[in-house]
């Protein structure tokens, strides 16, 4: 458009801006309405789906996990609140809260044995023992989900990965890289020796002993002087399948 001088030109420009703005608002409104409509449809579809597969979600851990994944993808958290549609429909909030309480309970009761670090698999099997047969199966995914909800309590519940294994930590101990590497090394046999740590990780003996002493002090390791080669072994109840399920029965 050729620029025209004078008041008339300015007025035309202002009028054009108004027109554009109106048009823009209209388009935006149409878009929002469309989005709202889509969301409503989506929500009702999701509800429909959840209603239809209610029993599967409750009883089948694999299905439950996939359902959660789907919800996460679209930004819906069925566990965000115990009130409202999801909780009423599925009672799924209660399920995880209950699981959370049981997990805390198990972690506390086995703490004297494992120093507050427990293998996720073991936690799950203890959880299953405790829940017996009722109310369907519990998967590791369910455990992880319940633990992630415990984080809001600020109680230091955390899942850490060591090598291939997942460990659940219920004490505020900070494990540094050295400790993690030792735990990873110990997964092969359940124990390590100072020699082995020095050799396999190429550490000085001071570094190895220091890290092992810390793990001992934290109650995460136990010494064993009974092997006939005379070398002290450091065992880690949190990764040995043998140890920490004892406390649960007593």
């Amino acid at each position, binding site marked *: 458009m050729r620029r025209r001088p004078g008041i008339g030109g300015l007025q035309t420009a202002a009028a054009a801006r108004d027109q554009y703005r109106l048009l823009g608002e209209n388009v935006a409104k149409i878009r929002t309405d469309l989005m709202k409509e889509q969301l409503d449809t989506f929500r009702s579809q999701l509800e429909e789906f959840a209603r239809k597969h209610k029993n599967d979600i409750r009883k089948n851990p694999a299905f439950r996990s996939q359902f959660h994944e789907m919800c996460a993808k679209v930004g819906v958290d069925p566990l965000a609140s115990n009130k409202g549609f999801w909780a009423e429909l599925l009672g799924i909030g209660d399920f995880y809260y209950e699981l959370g309480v049981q997990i805390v309970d198990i972690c506390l009761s086995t703490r004297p044995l494992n120093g507050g670090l427990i293998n996720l698999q073991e936690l799950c099997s203890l959880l299953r023992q405790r829940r017996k047969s009722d109310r369907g199966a519990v998967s590791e995914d369910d455990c992880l989900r319940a633990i992630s909800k415990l984080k809001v309590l600020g109680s230091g519940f955390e899942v850490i990965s060591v090598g291939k294994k997942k460990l659940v930590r219920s004490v505020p101990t900070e494990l540094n890289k050295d400790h993690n590497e030792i735990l990873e090394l110990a997964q092969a046999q359940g124990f390590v020796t100072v020699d082995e740590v020095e050799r396999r990780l190429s550490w000085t003996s001071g570094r190895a002993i220091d890290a092992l002493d810390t793990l001992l002090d934290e109650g995460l390791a136990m010494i064993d002087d009974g*092997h006939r080669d005379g070398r002290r072994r450091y065992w880690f109840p949190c990764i*040995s399948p043998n140890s920490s399920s004892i406390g649960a029965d007593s």
Partner: protein
Amino acid sequence: MQKLGEFKLPQFFNYPPYFTLQPVKETREKQVQLWKELILDYCRTQKIFIIGLEEEFPLFSNPVIERSLSHEGREAFLSALVSEGRAEWMDKGHRKCLILWHRIQDWADIILQYVKDNGLEDSVVTIEEIRSGTESQGTELYGIDRTILNRALKLLEQKGKLVIFKGTSADDEGVKFSV
């Protein structure tokens, strides 16, 4: 699960570090606790009253994992029982230990129950009869250690529930109940 005869061994029995005294206090406390329970449980089910520290004792070694308790370990666990009144050293050198899976007081109550069950309220029985008579068969008194039995009877005597009288030999020591 590993077994000793009919006795089910706990899982920690197969975990080697439990056979070494732990240096860290909290870990050691839990270790001692588990061993105390195991020793009492085992003695109760197997009717064992005396543990000799230098003798073979099935709980003190586990051939499956090739571990056995050191002398310090044995003494530490038994001492823990002693300090709780669940065991007593029988000599100064701590070589023999009397295990009280029932305290003396509880044994005394068991004797009183036995008296009631068999209508012996005003009768005379020999001490040997209490340990091995037909009435005691199937009760916990059957085969009870002589030392423990004597201690329980003395306690009851102090309370005026019975009178002990000595015979010419240990076999004909007897008691007269007056419950």
